């Protein structure tokens, strides 16, 4: 009997991942009730987003859309659309020093602090707009994203959990993302970033991303499910003033899957621009 229940719950989970369900993309649902607090996993522990009980509880409410698929930044109109500026916000002095140093280095034909090129993670937001597709799998309790760039993993929890206590959170380059539905929009709130070797841009523009970075994404499915639109609102009072806003579109990619990609120890020995005299590493 227990086995039967487990199988049934896994079936529910699998149904949430089904490509067949995504064809509807924008359901007729106009509002989704707020997700109740996550079920206690015992002794105060958060029940996993992949626990069958979590998935079964949340599967009772249909999500406004299912973004399961491969997505690629739309650069058809602008090859620089992977950047989040210009326009750029007004920088603080802590950022301005890096901005100026990068401009100076570029004028001298050099590359300033290109940590991604040195195999550090791109991190949010840049990981979303790399020139490799992002695979996304949505189940009722979470969205699992794996970038075709270094297989960077990002998880957006939809199970009603709160952000982790800052005293115990393990800071990461993609941060901790928690989503909630507002009508036909998925609003994702992300904090908990690492503030070292983490940048908001690349290629001659240097603006650091710090531990105070806070990113809110408003995600909508548009163009009959062929495009995702994500409106970014980003704050980091250590590095810029006010809100930095940027809206991106991503195209659905149905004829390509992501692959295993690693920044292997010998990669840069052969990608010699990363080790050339043009690099300003510190």
């Amino acid at each position, binding site marked *: 009997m227990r086995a039967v229940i487990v199988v049934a719950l896994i079936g529910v989970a699998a149904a949430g991942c089904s490509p067949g369900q995504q064809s509807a993309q924008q359901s007729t649902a106009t509002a989704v009730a707020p997700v109740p607090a996550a079920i206690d996993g015992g002794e105060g522990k958060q029940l996993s987003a992949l626990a069958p009980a979590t998935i079964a509880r949340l599967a009772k409410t249909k999500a406004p859309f299912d973004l399961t698929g491969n997505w690629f930044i739309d650069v058809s109109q602008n090859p620089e659309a992977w950047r989040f500026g210009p326009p750029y916000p007004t920088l603080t002095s802590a950022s301005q020093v890096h901005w100026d140093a990068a401009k100076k280095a570029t004028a001298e034909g050099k*590359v300033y602090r290109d940590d*991604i090129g040195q195999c550090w993670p791109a991190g949010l937001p840049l990981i979303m707009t790399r020139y490799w*597709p992002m695979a996304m799998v949505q189940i009722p309790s979470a969205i699992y994203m794996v970038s075709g760039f270094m297989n960077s993993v990002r998880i957006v929890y939809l199970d009603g959990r709160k952000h982790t206590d800052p005293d115990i959170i393990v800071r990461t380059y993609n941060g901790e993302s928690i989503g909630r539905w507002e009508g036909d929009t998925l609003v994702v709130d992300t904090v908990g970033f690492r503030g070292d070797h983490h940048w908001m841009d690349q290629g001659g523009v240097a603006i650091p991303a710090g531990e105070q970075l806070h990113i809110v994404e408003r995600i909508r499915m548009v163009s009959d499910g062929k495009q995702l639109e994500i409106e970014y609102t980003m704050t980091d009072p250590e590095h810029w003033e006010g809100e930095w806003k940027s809206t991106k579109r991503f195209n659905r990619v149905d004829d390509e899957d992501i692959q295993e990609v690693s*920044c292997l120890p010998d990669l840069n020995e052969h990608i010699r*621009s990363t080790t*050339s*005299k*043009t690099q300003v590493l510190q």
Partner: protein
Amino acid sequence: MKKLLLGCAGVLLATSVAPVLAHHSPAAFDRTKEVKLVGTVKEFRWQNPHTWIEVLVPDEKGKDVLWGVELTSPTYLIRAGWKSNIIKPGDKVTVVVNPVRSGEPSGIFRSLTLADGRVLTERPARLGTPDSK
């Protein structure tokens, strides 16, 4: 280095600038220049995130200089007709690159001409749009 560029590796003026697909900053390359490398394949690595070729190019004194050529990922090369065995060590090739600004023997790929005259390029990194096919 300058002599090398003027000798066996010819400097061309770039006529178009393709988007750079790389895990690293594109700022290292001089996209206004092209260098034509006529030499022999030393190694060809078909891998993610980048494919790369090392080519031995003789300078004006006949001494081989090892050039590193950085390419996009196999995803885009396959779409442009490449295969993992399309070149191998010892093959005579002509490769056009945008060189790094430092003058070191390294560049990012523009085109490959095989010994039989076939010319290979890359496919733009625009998945999900008609011109990525």
